[in-house]
């Protein structure tokens, strides 16, 4: 009991503290949080896409379609569980499990804050990249086990694509990892260590060695879209060519597991990008706008955001037509606003706000990448397979190699300067 309460005052992640109770709590929290994130992303993507495409999107289930993803999930769960007669049953069963497991495992090391991670590993980045690339196994298994042509072609495409874009991705990660050694002389692969290095160097890595960091971030963010099989690199599930790619034979709950894994994977790679280049949980301008007053001002932002969202809900509650059939959804919207407002007030309390703001900044940065995903999906046509490979190997890979070499050269030059000057 003492160790359980004692952890609340510690400054490390539960994994590092060796506190199994809090590890369990964090695992549950992260799992639930990511699942809610997926549900929200589903709604958010449909709404944003709809508004970009002169539509209004889901409107019927819940106020402004807020409950639509839940209704969809229910529908998928109660659907008949179909398995093709000639499928390899065991592999067919295991493929979605494999994909979901690997996608969720990556979140073990994602630092939502200094203490808000399940654990910290000294090889954190490597672990994330390694585990997330295991997901391709599940995709290939799905394509193979379906015993059908479209899934097979989809999974082969996906295998080739994921493997080739990983190279460019890892190279740009190397450049960020090299930057961590600048101030202290010792580099780190730990996710928390990387963010702390950015704090010490008083910059986000996206802006260090200008424009090398930005180029690395761009290469990574293109490669991560390809890695997660999203438009314009969504060839494995290219609807117009391969019907649904490796998902063709899947339906119901198994299909929803793939869906879950896809969005979890998107969030995982977005959090790598956030951690490596956008300062992880650090608030904007920690050094430029330092001092007690600025600290206080920035720590109020999460609570105020929630209050603003609540006000938004109430505004639309007032605008809803006052008719009987809309009453349930109007009350729902008001209740949602109340919950958001309550959360906002809790987040404004001293003691809570300092601990919560890390999570808030991290999630907003990840959210920025998620918005880019949606934006890209509505904007671009799809690449052809050979063009995809050309971009991966002939464009992104050389650029990322050059970035690594440039980072090394600039880093060595700066160290030398520091040495000579001293």
């Amino acid at each position: 009991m003492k160790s359980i309460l004692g952890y609340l005052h510690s400054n490390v992640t539960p994994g590092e503290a060796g506190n199994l109770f809090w590890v369990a709590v964090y695992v549950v929290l992260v799992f639930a949080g990511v699942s809610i994130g997926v549900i929200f992303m589903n709604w958010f993507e449909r709404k944003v896409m709809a508004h970009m495409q002169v539509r209004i999107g889901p409107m019927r289930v819940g106020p402004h379609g807020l409950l639509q993803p839940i209704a969809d999930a229910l529908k998928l769960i109660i659907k008949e569980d179909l398995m093709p007669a000639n499928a390899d049953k065991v592999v067919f069963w295991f493929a979605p499990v494999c994909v979901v497991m690997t996608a969720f495992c990556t979140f073990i090391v994602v630092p939502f804050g200094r203490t808000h991670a399940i654990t910290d590993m000294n090889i954190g980045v490597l672990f994330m990249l390694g585990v997330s690339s295991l997901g391709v196994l599940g995709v290939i298994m799905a394509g193979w086990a379906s015993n059908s042509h479209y899934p097979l072609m989809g999974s082969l495409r996906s295998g080739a694509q994921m493997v080739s874009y990983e190279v460019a991705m890892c190279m740009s990660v190397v450049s960020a990892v090299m930057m961590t050694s600048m101030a202290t002389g010792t580099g780190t692969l730990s996710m928390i260590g990387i963010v702390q290095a950015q704090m010490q160097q008083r910059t986000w890595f996206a802006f260090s060695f200008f424009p090398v960091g930005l180029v690395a971030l761009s290469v990574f963010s293109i490669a991560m879209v390809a890695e997660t099989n999203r438009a314009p690199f969504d060839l494995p599930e290219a609807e117009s060519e391969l019907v649904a790619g490796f998902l063709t034979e899947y339906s119901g709950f198994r299909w929803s597991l793939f869906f879950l894994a896809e969005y979890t994977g998107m969030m995982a790679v977005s959090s790598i990008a956030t951690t490596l280049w956008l300062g992880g949980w650090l608030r904007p301008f920690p050094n430029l706008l330092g001092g007690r007053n600025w600290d206080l001002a920035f720590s109020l932002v999460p609570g105020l955001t929630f209050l603003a969202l609540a006000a938004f809900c109430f505004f639309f509650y007032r605008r809803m037509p006052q008719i009987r059939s809309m009453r349930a959804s109007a009350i729902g919207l008001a209740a949602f606003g109340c919950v958001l407002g309550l959360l906002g007030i809790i987040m404004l309390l001293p003691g809570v706000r300092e601990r919560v703001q890390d999570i808030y900044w991290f999630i907003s940065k990840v959210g920025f990448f998620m918005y880019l995903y949606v934006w890209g999906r509505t904007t671009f046509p799809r690449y052809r397979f050979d063009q995809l490979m050309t971009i991966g190997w002939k464009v992104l890979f050389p650029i990322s190699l050059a970035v690594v070499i440039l980072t090394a050269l600039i880093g060595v030059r700066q160290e030398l300067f520091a040495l000579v000057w001293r």
Partner: protein
Amino acid sequence: MSDNQFYESFEELQLTRNDLDSKELVLNMGPQHPSTHGVLRVILKLDGEKVNGLECVIGYLHRGIEKVAESRTWAQFAPFVDRLDYTAAVANNFGYCLAVEKLLGLEIPKRAQYLRVILTELARIASHQVWLGTHVLDIGAVTPLFYAFRDRETILNVFEKYCGARLTTHSFRIGGCRWDAYEGFSREVLGICDDLGPRIHEYANLITGNRIWLQRTKNVGYISAADCLSYGITGPVLRASGVGLDLRKAQPYSSYEDFEFDIPTGANCDTFDRYMVRIEEMRQSIRIIRQAVEGLPEGPIIARVPKVIKPPVGEVYVSTEAPKGELGYFLVSDGTAQPYRMRVRPPSFINLQALEKMAKGGLVADVVAIIGTLDIVLGEVDR
């Protein structure tokens, strides 16, 4: 192991390896497939992603329309042709009416001719908008589809107001038009023309300069002008290969000679040029509509036609420039109230022949792009 044994087992090994290597993947695309534009079935022979050969299987939408004609009167049959190319039903009706009128030797009032031109050109724009949306969707961009369909809606609204139907309109009759322009018709159509100019510019802005779009369409689905002519390909596909053949100019019908418009042509014979040609055709259609609405003459809208149409014995072939290409009707009359034989020359069917030539040696994704760029409608292919 003796040498002999070794060689035998080696040969066996070779044989199995060759077996593995030479296996072609036969992929059945359609008739239920998101991007075969209806119920086209394509059997692809693939070597990995490369297309070694393909075969079209058609007939899933065959309704025997040509045979149906023989048991209907001339006027009764007119609504059936709306079901050929249902994205531009008016254009089908137009061709059929012209053919019967030629058989009868009728002179059509000027006002009816102009009305027909206006509606047909509107249908051409609507048809090209459907093509644009679905073609771009096949290549992976979702958004232009919604923009194109939003604007097509305004055109369909005009049809709805004019004749009550939106898709299979049956708005023309043998001898002219059934209805006169409704109150405010000119204002509404001119308003659409004003709106559509910037809208077409908007589509082009979204798509034309996009690098991915250029990579996906440039040099994809090449077909030379000579090949086009030998296959009998017409319409935008032919014009994109550099042959400026447009029946509206080559053999003007229904007062097309009164209007000033250009025939856009391409030079590279690829998917991108066909895209550019169709986009430009929409602009030219707007020009024609504007001139026709502004110069819409007063007068009767239908010629004097007997109640029971019994054309003299004879045969006639009339072709018009439908949105997809040359749409021809061959009619044989034996002097009775029913056609003796009716034959359609559907542009989609004839253009579809080129699919194999264009897609061979390309990739799977190109097949989809080429089906889109040929702009086929299965109602017309199968009839």
